[in-house]
């Protein structure tokens, strides 16, 4: 079976600053991929590049091939014009943003916004069909159809995020990209939304790219995870393997610095410093200045290579069978 | 959206900045050194009535036979003094009302806000005319009248800014330290509103210059001083336009336009500096 989405050698530059620097990603139909990393690592830029939604000041290159089920010819996203992209957006791939309040039109009722999304791509749809679809969509995301008559400000944060998801589903896409969909929400609401995403994947066979800085959220929702650092993927593999046996020092130390209820209450020393400035990247491995295991060889760029079955890491020393304890926390560079 | 670009860069590196600064600089120079440059006493009359351009009278003469160019130089001083002084009054009033109302809120704010709305809503020119009529016209009265009627916009903008600043964590932090209100206003609120006040005040300079010209044109100017507005009034009442004495009408009009334009350009530049979001749209 061919991949639903293939991104090859994606580069995005903002002026002379490389924001995304050679990213390869493959997504199977129905798969959930987590894109992890801290702010500025290029995870959101990657998603926007795929939708060709980056402002004109960004340059992107690389190939992005989409093979939605039921569509004969593969779609070469990178060759699409703006008009051609409008068909791809929402019809095949749709986005759920972080700030649900800002992405909804405050002066239009929810059902109008849903109707707009439906008729934009299915002009032939009759009024009755549209109404039926709206009711169906709202039910799918766990809202009562009556809520369609509300304005966004009358809804709670969780309800708005559900409306955003309903909007994303309006044209029955095969891929949904969710960018920090639960970051602004509390734990309980977050659990509800994650539950919903999981259910939708099962019911609709939806593929999902979930972008989050919260490794816990990704662990619970995704099949596979790609960890990004300074514009590159430094580790990728099945969620379970990556979390149980990380193969890149960045992943390892990120996981160690997170408290896990029931685990150790004493936290490992934090990663010193901060991520590099894209206009002043370190030579070789980009994590080198913050890495406790850095050596001479790290001045050369480590390629992302398979180090364990299905698990790849961009580290010269991978696979790591055992992690030497970290004693010295201070590495070159200032406090982050 | 680099804020690094300083206000000086904006003034010196852009064409708008250079033109605005150049024209304003020229008029400032004329206002200060005008009496030294002036070839004639601007008030001295002669028999050469509405005389055309000549070597002696570079811009011809008035209906009294006075030198138009010398009057123009004297007028520059009045325009600039009135413009800046009135704007200063307006800035102080607007800032005080905005700071106090916005910071303390409650009844104080409601009263000041109502006052502000009143001044915003009533048409200022008729109010100025009434006030100037009631009082004895003099330069001070003009400055006071214009200053008193033009502060409301500044007050509104400052108040809005203070309302957001008041909720900022650094203000709350200062309060959690036990800082007094006067301290918080002085060290946290005012410094963060100053650029806004300044940008807005520069725009008010332009308004004040225009207002002075308008009042003077209506005969409500300081009778002892020549301003561009009085020149225009005299020109029109003496029938200079129909007499074809364009040198009497066009120079003061052009001066008003150029000065107001240059000040406005600078004002908008400062506004862009204060609010970088505007800059992107330009």
């Amino acid at each position, binding site marked *: 079976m061919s991949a639903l989405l293939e991104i090859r050698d994606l580069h995005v530059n903002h002026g002379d600053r490389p924001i995304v620097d050679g990213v390869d990603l493959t997504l199977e139909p129905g798969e959930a991929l987590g894109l992890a990393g801290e702010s500025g690592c290029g995870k959101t830029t990657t998603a926007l590049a795929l939708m060709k939604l980056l402002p004109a000041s960004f340059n992107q290159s690389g190939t992005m091939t989409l093979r939605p089920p039921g569509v004969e010819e593969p779609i070469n996203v990178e060759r699409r014009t703006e008009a051609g992209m409008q068909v791809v957006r929402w019809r095949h791939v749709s986005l759920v943003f972080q700030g649900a309040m800002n992405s909804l039109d405050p002066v239009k009722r929810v059902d109008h916004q849903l109707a707009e999304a439906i008729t934009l791509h299915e002009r032939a749809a009759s009024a009755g069909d549209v109404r039926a679809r709206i009711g169906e969509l709202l039910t799918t995301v766990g809202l009562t159809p009556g809520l369609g008559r509300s304005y966004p400000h009358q809804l709670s944060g969780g309800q708005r995020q559900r409306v955003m998801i309903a909007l994303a589903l309006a044209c029955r896409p095969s891929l949904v990209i969710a960018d920090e969909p639960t970051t602004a929400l509390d734990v*309980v609401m977050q659990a509800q939304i994650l539950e919903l995403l999981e259910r939708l994947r099962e019911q609709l066979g939806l593929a999902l790219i979930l972008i989050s800085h919260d490794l816990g959220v990704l*662990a619970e929702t995704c099949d596979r995870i790609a960890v990004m650092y300074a514009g590159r993927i430094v580790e990728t593999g099945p969620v379970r393997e990556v979390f149980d046996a990380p193969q890149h020092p960045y992943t390892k130390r990120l996981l160690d*610095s997170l*408290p896990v209820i029931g685990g150790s209450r004493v936290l490992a020393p934090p990663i010193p410093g901060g991520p590099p400035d894209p206009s002043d990247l370190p030579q070789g491995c980009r994590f080198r200045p913050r890495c406790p295991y850095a050596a001479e060889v790290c001045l050369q760029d480590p390629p992302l290579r398979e180090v364990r079955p299905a698990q790849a890491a961009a580290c010269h020393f991978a696979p790591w069978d055992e992690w030497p304890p970290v004693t010295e926390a201070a590495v070159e560079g*200032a*406090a982050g | 959206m680099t804020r690094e670009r300083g206000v000086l860069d904006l003034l010196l590196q852009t064409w708008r900045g250079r033109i605005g600064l150049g024209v304003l600089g020229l008029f400032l120079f004329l206002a200060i050194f005008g009496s030294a440059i002036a070839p004639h006493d601007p008030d001295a009359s002669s028999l050469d009535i509405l005389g055309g351009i000549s070597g002696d009278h570079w811009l011809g003469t008035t209906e009294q036979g006075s030198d138009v160019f010398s009057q123009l130089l004297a007028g520059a001083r009045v325009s600039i003094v009135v413009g800046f002084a009135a704007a200063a009054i307006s800035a102080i009033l607007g800032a005080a009302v905005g700071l106090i109302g916005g910071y303390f809120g409650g009844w104080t704010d409601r009263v000041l806000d109502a006052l502000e709305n009143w001044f915003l809503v009533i048409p200022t020119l008729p109010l100025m005319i009434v006030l100037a009529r009631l009082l004895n016209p003099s330069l001070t009265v003009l400055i006071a009248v214009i200053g008193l009627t033009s502060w409301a916009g500044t007050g509104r903008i400052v108040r809005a800014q203070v309302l957001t600043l008041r909720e900022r964590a650094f203000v709350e932090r200062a309060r959690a*330290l036990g800082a007094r209100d006067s301290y918080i206003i002085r060290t946290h609120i005012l410094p963060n509103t100053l650029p806004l006040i300044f940008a807005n005040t520069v725009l008010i300079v332009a308004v004040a210059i225009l207002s002075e010209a308008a009042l003077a044109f209506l005969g409500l100017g300081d009778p002892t001083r020549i301003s561009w507005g009085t020149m225009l009034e005299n020109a029109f009442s003496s029938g200079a336009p129909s007499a074809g004495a364009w040198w009497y009408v066009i120079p003061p009009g052009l001066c008003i336009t150029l000065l107001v334009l240059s000040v406005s350009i600078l004002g908008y530049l400062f506004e862009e500096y204060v609010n970088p979001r505007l800059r992107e749209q330009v």
Partner: protein
Amino acid sequence: MSALMEARDLAVHFRAHRAVARAVDGVSFEWQPGEILGVVGESGCGKSTLARALLGLVPPTTGSVARDGAAVEGKAALRDLRRRVQMIFQDPYQTLNPRQRVATIVAEPLRVQGVNGADHEARVRRAMEDVGLEPERFLDRYPHQLSGGQRQRVAIAAALVLEPEGLICDEPVSMLDVSVRAQILQVLIELRQRRNLALLFITHDLSLAWSLCDRLAVMYLGRIVEQGSAVDVIEHPQHPYTQALVAAVPVPTAGARIREPLSGELPDSTNVPSGCRFHPRCPRRFEPCDRVDPPLLATTGPGQLAACLLHDPALAPDAVA
């Protein structure tokens, strides 16, 4: 030994349009010297208002705040309290005055509290070193020249410069990236160890509260519904709400999870349900829950209290978990 700070039946009500929002609605607790006390709950539960009420930033409607066993009353007492207990805030981008240099920001508490000017420089430097910022490199910078983590360090330095006994931290790391978050937490933990600084740590992150805090208070709609040692409260929650909160925490150890997320949302604090305020959402409610407002009751855990009728031997059905 008396508590560093104490809330005695503290309530803060706000007038909102025609209704009254009961943001904090009768809260009592003690915060011991050198203790890390966590206050957890969803946004809107009143935890931030509680923090502000402790420092007198919002006036209490009823109840009082005490320090060293004596109620804080009057301006002088409040000023003294604000010298000994400091506060840091959530948003590192809002917490510093953009027009002041770091040196001015960190020295501000000294100026406000009228500390002798000769000491300022040494104390500012010491505070900077305590938070891991080299004074030479950072004192002359403006906030916009700092990263988010550095800003939060500056805010902590400014809070430390008066050498307080307690630090109230309102979600100090929730807006920071994971690696930076760990750095800031380490700074706070070290401060506690070195200076015996007590922390009142307000957070919605239960994993964080579990690993960092000594004791924990769980808030729901303006009330503490459970309190006890952090380990006990999170690992063996006794209140159905705490149980639901803990169950909702996403865990970065992969694996299928079986959970039933709590349905519904936190009600508005202008519209507090009768009886137990959690009963409309509670999966374990029984007969008198909609009528009886439960006080904090002893549970099986040592020193662990829960405001739930399941722990009332007279009312509870036999099915006590």
